[in-house]
């Protein structure tokens, strides 16, 4: 039929052949007949021929070469689909001779106009690489070129190629890092997974450990113990400043936690787990718990990862404890993993609930699961001292269970528990001794015998009796029980030789002729050791010490402990063994490599870290079509605190500069009419806005200045008049005591109603705060007539952190999401100290609490007056009198906790100076240093 000239017949024939291939039958002898049809005009026939070719070309290399010219022709076809598919098939044919042709084709396709073809080229790279690794250098060049591609279609595929061909060439990523971060949300799901995994490794080599001050990754005990306590300390000590690029990565991956694709969620989760500061890792818990509703295979993988995470970061999953409760319909492997997670989550507060759950599990019909539950109880008992006795009692009750497996497992676990405090529990040992008559499971019998032998002093009467019974049944026992019988005999012989001498001899004789050489050896060894003869050397004197030495109690550990050295979410992590091609997650560098390598010379402003720039145009772009988000942008206040926080957090598509840029950078090949309209509309808006802004600037607001105590106070925008539909709000930190609550920072808000209608019922709603923070709202402003302005003061307790206070500003018609983020300098209030007091306090805040920096003062700021003014502008500190004119000293206290903040600026020759800040709170100290440096040098 293949020779027929009717397409329909050919098609039918090809369909049958493909069905054969699909069923795994050999169709290779048809190769010559099929390969001629490669040039067939019918697309469907062609496609099927391609399928056939790719499958069998490797086996029939010579014949396959016949088809090559067709593909070469296809590569030049004007239709991009044909170009792409030709490249795809060409690169899939695993014939070494055509390597040069493939190389050429890939190079050409990499600069194709169509992104689809470029994507195919990226796919072809690993194929060629696996065919001929010698081509690596050339392929890397292609990868480098494709990495620079700006379309989302290509990004995922090229990173995939990068990972396969040259994952070690991290230097190729530098220039593309920011672009990849920004593109990420629009890349297709599978590409996202690959990119996120790659960026995780990248970040590990390029940024500093954000948790470095909490003991870093090495200090595990710190994580395990008192999770709650250090949660509080978290904000206080963080003299570490996050690289803005690091922050960019974390910020841009976070929305992907909401992806419908479990693999993407997992990838983000592992990224956060490995890269985020401890306080932020918590966000992934919710998303991971959500995955537990998915298919059981997904659950299986997620639970494995959760189990590892719970060991290090228990607190994260504690709120979701109940989501890990087990249902009788779960598959066994899921049950056991959930059990593992529950055990890891157990602590003093929730142990009673967990134990109650465990009690229902013990009754399950699934015996493997019951055994695992008993072990879990044992682990809870060892980890949490308070419940040890309860657990032990519960387990002892299980000893009377009818199911032998349950009893056996309990015995093993009880044995482990008893080893911790044997003296208290001799009655349990007695009880267990009785069980030897009934229990048949070897492991359990062995455990009981060991227990009796080890603590024979606690049960002096029963022990010999047990030995007697065992000696009777010795020959019928399993090997491990036999060994323990010998062990018991030896121990009894040493402690109570009067009663057991003969029994021991008897047992040893039996063992001497046992079939198992291990047992024979053991018997011989023990006989020599414990039975004194002339020949036995000095060793027998110490026999008792040898046998009855105090043995350390076993530590019941999670099998998931230390698994986190594998990258989470990886196959290696799941198997707890290194899979082929696994790439170790690098440790954090000790000092950060040069961050400037990521700077892109061209269009710096577009790709800069401070802004997420819209990459696509209107219809798809999920950022730019979003309404403007109101945030304090970095550009307006370069001296805001910590660097990590100060980078503006989102796109403000309403702001003039951004939207203009988006127009410039928008790709010209997309031309939808609406878009044009949209642009025009935007432009108009922008013009209006700029005009109004310039007006506003030229006319200083008089009423405002009379209220503000110092003209140095800086105003921040809370709500722009465009987004606020005529209502604009500015705020400043008035630096006055907030009378209702001394622990709050007073924030003075200035409302202006630019709209034509009145605004009513201005008030605050839905305040979202970090834990510990509080807000005292201003009284509702009932009416703000059109064109008028008013002020109100609200108090915010920032808890001495620069975390933003987010809330909704509500009018009678609308709600606006706004946030106030304080510069660190506003988190303190001045205190008045004398020089001596200052010196005394400073001497107590040395070492870790002192941060010094050398700086060169700005040319305009070399006299004392200028320094004082700049420092007091940047931070709410008061000057401390000082004898030397080379030094300026300032003092303040943090608003919430009242920790002292001392700053000293010592000037030297030619504008050189040293800035020293002493503060108990290291985070505040570091951020303040940064701010003051900025203030003094600019």
């Amino acid at each position, binding site marked *: 039929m293949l020779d027929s000239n009717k397409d*329909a017949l050919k*098609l039918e024939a090809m*369909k049958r052949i493909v*069905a054969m291939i699909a*069923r*795994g039958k050999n169709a290779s002898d048809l190769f010559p007949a099929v390969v001629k049809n490669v040039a067939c005009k019918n*697309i469907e026939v062609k496609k*099927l021929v391609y*399928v056939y070719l790719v*499958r069998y070309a490797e086996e029939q290399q010579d014949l396959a070469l016949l088809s090559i010219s067709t593909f070469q022709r296809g590569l030049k076809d004007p239709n*991009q689909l044909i170009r792409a598919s030709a490249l*795809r098939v060409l690169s899939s044919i695993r014939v070494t001779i055509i390597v040069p042709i493939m190389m050429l084709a890939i190079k050409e396709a990499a600069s194709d106009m169509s992104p689809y073809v470029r994507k195919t080229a990226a*796919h072809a790279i690993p*194929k060629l690489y*696996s065919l001929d690794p010698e081509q690596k*250098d050339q392929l890397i060049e292609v990868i480098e070129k494709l990495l620079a591609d700006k379309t989302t*279609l290509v990004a995922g595929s090229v990173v995939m190629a990068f*990972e396969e061909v040259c*994952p*070690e060439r991290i230097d190729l990523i530098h220039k593309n890092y920011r672009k990849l971060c920004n593109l990420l949300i629009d890349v*297709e*799901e*599978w590409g996202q997974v690959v990119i996120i995994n790659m960026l995780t490794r990248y970040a*590990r*080599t390029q940024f500093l450990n954000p948790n470095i001050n909490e003991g870093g990754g090495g200090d595990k005990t710190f994580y395990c113990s008192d999770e709650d306590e250090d949660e509080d300390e978290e904000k206080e000590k963080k003299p570490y400043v996050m690289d803005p690029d690091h922050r960019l990565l974390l910020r841009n991956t976070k*929305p992907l936690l*909401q*992806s*419908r694709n479990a*693999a993407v969620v997992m990838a983000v989760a592992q990224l956060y787990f490995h890269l985020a500061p401890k306080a932020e890792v918590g966000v992934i818990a*919710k*998303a991971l718990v*959500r995955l537990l509703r998915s*298919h*059981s*295979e*997904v659950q*299986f*993988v*997620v639970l494995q990862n959760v189990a590892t995470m719970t060991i290090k970061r228990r607190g994260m999953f504690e709120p979701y404890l*109940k989501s890990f*409760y087990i249902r*009788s*319909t779960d598959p*066994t*492997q899921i049950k056991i993993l959930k059990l593992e997670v529950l055990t890891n989550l157990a602590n003093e507060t929730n142990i009673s609930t967990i134990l109650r*759950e465990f009690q229902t599990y013990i009754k399950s019909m699934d015996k493997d699961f019951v055994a695992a539950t008993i072990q879990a109880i044992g682990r809870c008992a060892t980890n949490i001292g308070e419940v040890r006795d309860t657990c032990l009692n519960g387990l002892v009750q299980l000893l009377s269970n009818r199911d032998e497996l349950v009893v056996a497992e309990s015995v093993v676990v009880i044995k482990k528990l008893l080893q911790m405090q044997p003296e208290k529990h001799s009655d349990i040992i007695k009880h267990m001794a009785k069980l030897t008559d009934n229990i048949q499971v070897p492991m359990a019998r062995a455990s009981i015998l060991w227990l009796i032998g080890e603590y024979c002093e606690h049960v002096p009467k029963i022990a010999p009796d047990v030995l007697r019974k065992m000696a009777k049944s010795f020959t019928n026992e399993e090997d491990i029980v036999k060994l323990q019988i010998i062990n018991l005999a030896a121990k009894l012989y040493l402690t109570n030789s009067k009663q057991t001498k003969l029994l021991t001899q008897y047992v040893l004789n039996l063992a001497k002729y046992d079939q198992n050489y291990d047992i024979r050896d053991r018997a011989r060894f023990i006989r020599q050791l414990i039975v004194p003869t002339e020949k036995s050397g000095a060793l027998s004197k110490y026999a008792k010490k040898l046998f009855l030495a105090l043995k350390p109690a076993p530590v019941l550990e999670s099998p998931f402990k230390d698994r986190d050295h594998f990258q989470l979410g990886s*196959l290696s992590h799941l*198997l707890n063994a290194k*899979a*082929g*091609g696994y790439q170790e997650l*690098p*440790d954090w560098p000790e000092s950060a*490599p040069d961050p400037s390598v990521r700077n892109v010379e061209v269009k710096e402003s577009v790709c800069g870290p401070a802004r997420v720039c819209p990459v696509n145009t209107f219809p*798809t772009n*999920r950022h730019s079509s979003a309404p403007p988000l109101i945030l304090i942008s970095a550009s307006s206040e370069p001296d805001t605190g910590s660097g990590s926080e100060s980078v503006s957090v989102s*796109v403000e598509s309403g702001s003039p500069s951004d939207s203009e840029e988006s127009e410039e950078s928008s790709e010209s090949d997309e031309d939808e009419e*609406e878009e044009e309209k949209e642009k025009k509309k935007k432009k108009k808006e922008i013009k209006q806005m700029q005009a109004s802004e310039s007006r506003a600037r030229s006319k200083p607001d008089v009423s405002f200045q009379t209220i503000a105590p110092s003209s140095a106070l800086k105003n921040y925008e809370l709500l722009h008049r465009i987004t606020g539909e005529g209502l604009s709000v500015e705020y400043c930190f008035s630096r006055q005591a907030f009378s209702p609550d001394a622990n709050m920072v007073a924030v003075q808000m200035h409302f202006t109603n630019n709209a034509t209608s009145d605004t009513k019922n201005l008030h605050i709603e839905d305040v979202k705060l970090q834990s510990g923070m509080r807000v005292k709202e201003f009284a509702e402003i009932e009416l703000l007539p059109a064109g008028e302005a008013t002020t109100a003061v609200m108090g915010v307790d920032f808890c001495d952190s620069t975390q933003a206070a987010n809330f909704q500003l509500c009018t009678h018609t609308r709600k606006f*999401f706004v946030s106030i983020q304080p510069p660190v300098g506003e988190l303190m209030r001045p205190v008045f100290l004398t020089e001596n007091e200052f010196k005394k306090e400073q001497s107590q805040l040395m070492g870790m609490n002192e941060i010094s920096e050398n700086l060169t003062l700005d040319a305009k700021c070399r006299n004392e007056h200028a320094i004082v003014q700049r420092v007091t502008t940047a931070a709410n500190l008061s000057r401390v009198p000082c004898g030397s004119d080379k030094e300026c000293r300032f003092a303040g206290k943090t608003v919430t906790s009242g920790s002292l903040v001392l700053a000293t600026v010592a000037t030297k020759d030619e504008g050189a100076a040293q800035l020293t800040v002493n503060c108990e709170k290291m985070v505040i100290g570091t951020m303040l240093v940064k701010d003051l440096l900025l203030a003094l040098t600019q």
Partner: protein
Amino acid sequence: MLYIKTVGAIFFRFTYGLTLYDGIYFCLRVHRSAGGSSVALLPFWRQCWQSAAEMIHSLFLINPTGDVFLEKHWKSVISRSVCDYFFEAREKAVTPENVAPVLQTPHHYLISIYRGKLFFLSVVQTEVSPLFVIEFLHRVADTFQDYFGECSETIINDNMVVVYELLEEMLDNGFPLATESSVLKELIKPPNILRSVVNTLTGGSNVGSSLPTSHLSTIPWRRNGVKYTHNEAYFDVIEEIDAIVDKSGMTVFAEIQGVVEACVRLSGMPDLTLSFVNPRLLDDVSFHPCVRFKRWESERVLSFIPPDGNFTLMTYHVSSQNLVSIPVYVKQNISFFDSGSSGRMDITVGPKQTMGKTVEGLSVTIHMPKSVLTVDLTATQGNYTYDLTAKVLVWDIGKLNPQKLPTLQGSLSIQAGVPKPVENPSLNIDLKIEQLAISGIKVSRLDLFGEKYKTFKGVKYVTKAGNFQVRT
């Protein structure tokens, strides 16, 4: 001096088996300090990176009797004997669900999913994110479902060529290429009767002849030029109650999971905005890629350009602070007697918090202990079946009448000579309440932008029991 450093590092690596990372870091340093010197390291790298990641190698479809009925290789062929390791694991497991999804064999790793009584078994050779593979396999199964209406052995056998073509398009060299159903449907048209008739007559094909536009358009999930005479958009808000109720009727754990399924048939490029009356109820959400996350974050509205046809718009979880109302209560008494190898069972179901709606589709499923031989029960409403081999009792009640509560009672006979079961079986409840979202979530409005035609809109609410278990 630099040379010494280089040699030293390699030596160090070999002797101490240092991690990969040390190598990279070193390489970077050299690179920066002396330009091209990293080139000297390349032959060394080549050795190390020869076997890089390559994702999914092959796929086998296995039917319930343990036969491979389809295989597809994206790289060189792997013998199907690799499946033997899987069959071994399958035999050990009690039920198909209990097979571990990831297996290790000497040369390969097997990652499998169980869907519609079939195993999708993929072979990978190197490190890969297991979830990546699992998620992809599920996507393959979803695609089959989407194309053929169901995902079973017969249907796959009937459409072998289309299936094979689909697999070819979905994965290239083991890396996913096109998984969006809209893109695939343009590449390979789903079979339907009309087309198959036309194709036989005209010799036409079911392979798309033009380039899929959405593949290239900036919206991968929607193609250009969609046209309908009737424009309509329907949304189904389906909520499922997951709960564990203990013996005494106390709720151990309860939560609500919801999903918004959409069926959108709109022409052109519509831009939709769906808003809720009470979005704050939603605690955790996940979206179809079309939803603009920023809009959700700032305004709590779903703004999206929808895919064409049916799709899952979002799934959500209702915040756990809100108390979950449990629509039914179950009074049960199951006991096994010590003597006489029998037991009694008495179950009554009644309405609890149904918000004035009727509970429909009520059924109770009980997995009996293995020793229960037969059951002799009478139901006041509905009927029951007992599967003797699987030991599953299903009581199908139907509509719940609050005036006359349905009960099921009678005796159970137990295998003689076997100790009575330790645990009472737990009851799984299934139910459906129409026109009610149990969490109280409500869609407030749907707005259409970008197109100027009238749209027919509709929202439907359904509450179902998800994983609703009563312990006894």
